[in-house]
């Protein structure tokens, strides 16, 4: 995680800092402009006029993984691509989140059974925060996934986790 995590005990200051940090992080999740297949078109549609991802502050598609906060894995991940996706994920700066969009990246989707060249779920190579269902998901579904991700971010804390 980021610079400050895990260095403090839990107290009032930390709680309010948490609020500020999580507010900032959840309010500006810049996605990596990274489309693979069908879902990428729906991702573009989500960014376009009708649904407008930018309303949530997530419209600033970054071309470079270094500046992106969330990676929307939109589409089928093949084995050839899986290696690259892992590298892209490693290049992203903490804190980073992954939205797996659509059946293919969730679990291989339709290509699950005979797809000798398809990775069975992007979570085999990188950790996934939110799975958005659909093949492809409606733009609303992606927005809902983003809202879910925001909820998840808001529950984070910089306080040191108790050893449990």
């Amino acid at each position: 995680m980021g610079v400050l995590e895990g260095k403090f005990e839990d107290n009032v200051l930390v709680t309010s800092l948490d609020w500020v940090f999580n507010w900032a992080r959840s309010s500006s999740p810049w996605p990596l402009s990274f489309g693979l297949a069908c879902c990428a078109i729906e991702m573009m549609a989500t960014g376009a006029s009708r649904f407008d991802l930018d309303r949530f502050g997530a419209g600033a598609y970054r071309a470079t993984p270094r500046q992106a906060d969330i990676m929307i894995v939109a589409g089928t991940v093949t084995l050839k691509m899986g290696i690259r996706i892992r590298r892209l994920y490693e290049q992203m700066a903490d804190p980073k989140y992954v939205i797996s969009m659509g059946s293919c990246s969730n679990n291989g989707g339709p290509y699950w059974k005979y797809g000798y060249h398809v990775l069975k779920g992007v979570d085999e190579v990188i950790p996934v925060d939110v799975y958005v269902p659909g093949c492809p998901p409606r733009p609303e579904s992606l927005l809902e996934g983003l809202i879910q991700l925001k909820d998840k971010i808001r529950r984070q804390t910089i306080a040191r986790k108790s050893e449990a």
Partner: protein
Amino acid sequence: MESIRDLLELIPYTTALPVWVQAILPPAVSAVILFLFVAVLAMFAIWLERKVAAHMQDRLGPMYVGGWHGWAQSIADTIKLLLKEDIVPAAADKALFKAAPAIVFIPSFAAFVVLPFGISSIVADLNIGVLYLFAVASLTVVGILMAGWASNNKYSLFGGMRSAAQIVSYEIPAALSVMPVIIIVGSLSMQQIVRAQTGGIQNWFVFRNPFTFLAFFLYFICSLAEVNRTPFDIPEAESELVAGYHTEYSGMRFAFFFLAEYSNMFLVAGIATTLFLGGWSQVLPAQWVPKQLIPGPILFFLKALSLVFVQIWLRWTLPRLRVDQLMYLCWKVMLPLALVLVLGAGLLAVW
């Protein structure tokens, strides 16, 4: 600066401080104020850009963060960027990599020193103001080259080289297109230039004579190129070079580039306002309204922001040029035109 010194004298016990602290305090305080000012300005410009772009594209833009039309969006972005992990690639040249954002940001920040926001609100009214602006602006190039080279990434390097070539070339027509104004005023001081334009819209240099009128457009286009805005944003052309010279930058260092880009936007708009649109001077002719109704700084901001708006407008309208077309435009179109303008303005002044 003077006003800040006056302000500090109001605070008790400052005289009891050590001498060197007393000496260093006013510049330090004004620097901090200026920094905050620039940061807020840049954040506002970012928000404005996102909203304007969205509405041009039949979207809404940021809507939720902070409440009304996502006014806090840029604040959230900034906090988030500051909190992000700061990656220094293992293959990069560490020292230069870390220094580059500062070298890019400092000039754009330092250039604000000579912007006359109002009759008395200017940090330092240098008598070589315009020259100072160009001197400081030339430092940015080094930072960009540094960033591009130190990242050890081919895209960055391409971006850096393109950017350096672009800024260095466009500095020439930009500087030349300022000359007509300087010839008329006979001074390099920004404040003097504004004073020469007081008394209403007809005294602004845009409308003074045809040469200055054209020079305004010329300067505006060249300044677009100098701050790497579309249609001249090839150094960071997303679809070609990923993100240009700041491809490898993340978190805070990227925030500095971002901030520098947007403060530069405001800076060139401010310069154009000062040189051509009368700076803080009033709009209505003095014959009709003898007293300045709106305070100078507000007028200045309105004028500068409208130019920023035009920059944004252009960005979301035009495709970008190619490198050779960009250079063609500079050397074959802008430069001859600028020379003609200087010549014409000079002849007009002599005559």
